[in-house]
């Protein structure tokens, strides 16, 4: 409750909690797709305010967690080359590769730098013409337009010493993979608000129809989440499916058109491997052929990568909601934020980190 109190919105939160309690008559499993939402739910204690009949299943929307292990190993190998300035958002730096992470590579002498924006990497490249600047371009649809713009700007400005190491992933194909699994337990979804601010929500409508599930586009503050949960449960109780928009203050059905246009110029969809989950058809973006020379994977040959996951880590089952973090035997013992076995324990969007930080381990 603490953070909801601090949000000075306790009365309103309670109103939604009461409405939820008055609505629910049977067991329901909802998935919040986005790891940022998972953290808010756990941090604000919303998971503990809901009726016992409602289970929140934490989804795969943690970009850091689903970035393939081979790519992290490759990032580290590239970062270690003397001509490279390797740039990344802060949350990738501590994600464990097979043997080490980017932050450790930095402490061993690699030039690894945190950047605020991918355009800052392009600027760094301009300022360091005798070096090669690589940006680690991972993320969901929210981050794809900034990364597309960095590549576009580098091309326009002729910044040839800039490239990206990329592994973009997309939400709708992952939702379809979950829904079509024979083990699927999820009956309704909270869709990630900022992904939809870019993409809109039209692409969720056929999914809602095909699998007969309610999908509610939801924001990130505790009240947004409570309202999104209420809307999803109400639809379920009334036997309705379809897409609703809780986050209308930021999201329109068509999404952000200029952003989609530039993404379409720079990226194309491709099959993509998700760490812990496996390959999902047409679930990622790669650079189009005409931007191939900005692909760091092609520019820097670091040889064959043989990635090795920590055998005890059950991140894959956690990312698809089959298990909760505390059901892992390594949780809180062998695996902690300071020495993680898997990515969900270090990421600000990882479910394991949320459970560890906010005492859901018992």
């Amino acid at each position, binding site marked *: 409750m603490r953070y909801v109190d601090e949000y000075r919105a306790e009365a309103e939160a309670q109103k939604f909690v009461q409405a939820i309690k008055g609505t629910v008559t049977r067991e329901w499993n909802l998935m919040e797709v986005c790891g940022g939402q998972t953290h808010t739910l756990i941090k604000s204690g919303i998971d503990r305010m809901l009726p016992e009949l409602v289970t929140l299943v934490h989804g795969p929307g943690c970009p850091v967690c689903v970035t393939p292990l081979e790519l992290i190993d490759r990032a580290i190998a590239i970062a270690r080359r003397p001509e490279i300035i390797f740039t990344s958002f802060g949350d990738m730096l501590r994600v464990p590769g097979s043997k080490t992470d980017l932050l450790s590579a930095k402490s061993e002498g690699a030039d690894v730098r945190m950047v605020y924006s991918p355009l800052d990497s392009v600027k760094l490249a301009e300022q360091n013409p005798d070096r090669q600047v690589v940006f680690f371009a991972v993320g969901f649809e929210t981050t794809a*337009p900034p990364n597309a713009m960095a590549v576009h700007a580098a091309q*326009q400005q002729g910044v040839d010493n800039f490239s990206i190491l990329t592994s973009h992933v997309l939400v709708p194909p992952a939702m379809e993979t979950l829904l079509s699994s024979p083990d699927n337990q999820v009956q309704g979804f909270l869709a990630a608000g900022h992904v939809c601010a870019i993409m809109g929500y039209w692409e969720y409508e056929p999914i809602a129809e095909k699998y007969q599930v309610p999908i509610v586009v939801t924001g990130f503050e505790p009240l947004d989440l409570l309202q999104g949960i209420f809307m999803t449960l109400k639809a379920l109780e009334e036997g309705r499916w379809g897409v609703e928009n809780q986050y209308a203050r930021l999201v329109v059905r068509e999404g952000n058109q200029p952003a989609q246009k530039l993404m379409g110029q720079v990226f194309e969809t491709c099959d993509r491997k998700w760490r812990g989950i496996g390959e999902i058809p047409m679930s990622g973006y790669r650079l189009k052929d005409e931007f191939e020379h900005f692909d760091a994977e092609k520019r820097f040959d670091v040889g064959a990568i043989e990635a090795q996951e920590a055998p005890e880590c059950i991140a894959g089952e956690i990312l698809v909601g089959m298990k909760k973090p505390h059901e892992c035997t390594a949780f809180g013992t062998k695996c902690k934020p300071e020495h993680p076995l898997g990515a969900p324990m270090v990421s600000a969007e990882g479910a394991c980190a949320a459970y560890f930080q906010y005492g859901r381990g018992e």
Partner: protein
Amino acid sequence: MCLGVPGKVIETQEDPLGMTMGRVSFGGIVKEVCLAYTPDVEVGDFVVVHVGFAISKIDEEEAHKVFEYLQEIGELQELDVPQPGDTEQEADG
């Protein structure tokens, strides 16, 4: 990584290749932000910014509410990451 932080546009300018950039204040911390994806934004407007890109306009009252919330829960560390222009400015000043 999908965090969106609201801020106030205090300056806009076109870069040499025609891309609209701007300076956005997040409770006093000023960042250089790309405004290309919010073409109708003007100085004084509030925007939600993701990794240095405005992705949407937001009304002022809502912007303050969300910013205070993010501040309270300690989700604004990304604003501490320096930008390549920052040191130049300090050198100039």
